[in-house]
């Protein structure tokens, strides 16, 4: 298992992406799966900065990556405000441009691109987001 902690700011999104891409490539995922995993993690980190911390450089994002034969599991931990995914409505991606609401696109991406997306909050641990992708899924 590889664990790294990053200051939660937008500049670090590129650094985090590099870390995730290396892990996903090492785990043997296809190019499109690596891109999907990279996207899901970028969206997760952007959401943590925007919503959990409510701004840049307020806290940190700890990322644990666990690879096994058939999957990669990425756990993102922050100490920001509790995140309640049920509060974010799923975007209607077919609604016309003039009336379409944009909130929730990041979570929508995560759910479409990963096989498991699990949000948890505890007073002791903070927010824990677990992303799982199976090989060939």
């Amino acid at each position: 298992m590889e664990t790294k902690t990053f200051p939660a700011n937008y500049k670090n999104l590129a650094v985090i992406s590099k870390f995730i891409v290396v892990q996903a490539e090492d785990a043997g995922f296809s190019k499109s799966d690596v891109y999907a995993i990279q996207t899901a993690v970028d969206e997760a980190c952007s959401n943590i900065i925007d919503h959990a911390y409510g701004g840049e450089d307020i806290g940190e994002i700890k990322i644990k990556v666990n690879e096994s034969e058939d999957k990669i599991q990425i756990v993102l931990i922050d100490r920001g405000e509790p995140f309640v995914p049920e509060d974010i409505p799923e975007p209607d991606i077919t609604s016309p441009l003039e009336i379409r609401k944009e909130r929730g696109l990041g979570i929508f991406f995560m759910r479409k691109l990963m096989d498991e997306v699990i949000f948890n909050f505890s007073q002791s641990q903070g927010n824990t987001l677990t992303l799982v992708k199976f090989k060939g899924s």
Partner: protein
Amino acid sequence: MELVVTEYVHCDLIEINGRIDSYSAPQIETVLNALMVDNHYNIIVNLEDVIFLSSSGILTFVNAQRKLKQQNKGEIVFVNVPELVFGSFELAGFHVVFKFFDDITTAVSRF
């Protein structure tokens, strides 16, 4: 991310290189807004050298496109969009909001 704007007779070309994410998207928003303030409404965006596009990047273009459509002035079109990057437009359902061209010459000729 790096960004170069070239002015044509009837349109402007923005060539972007690198990652478009929550860090770099505001720089693109600034350039798009500056073009619109200068009455430049026909905008071609070359994504050939873009290696990553997040939802915040997509929404930057979508918001600018919405402004243009609301004012009934010009539009943003894309050229040379890498397959994986196009996949994100598709996933978000925004591939129907823009025109996509295979090369700059074809896109320029549309304006």
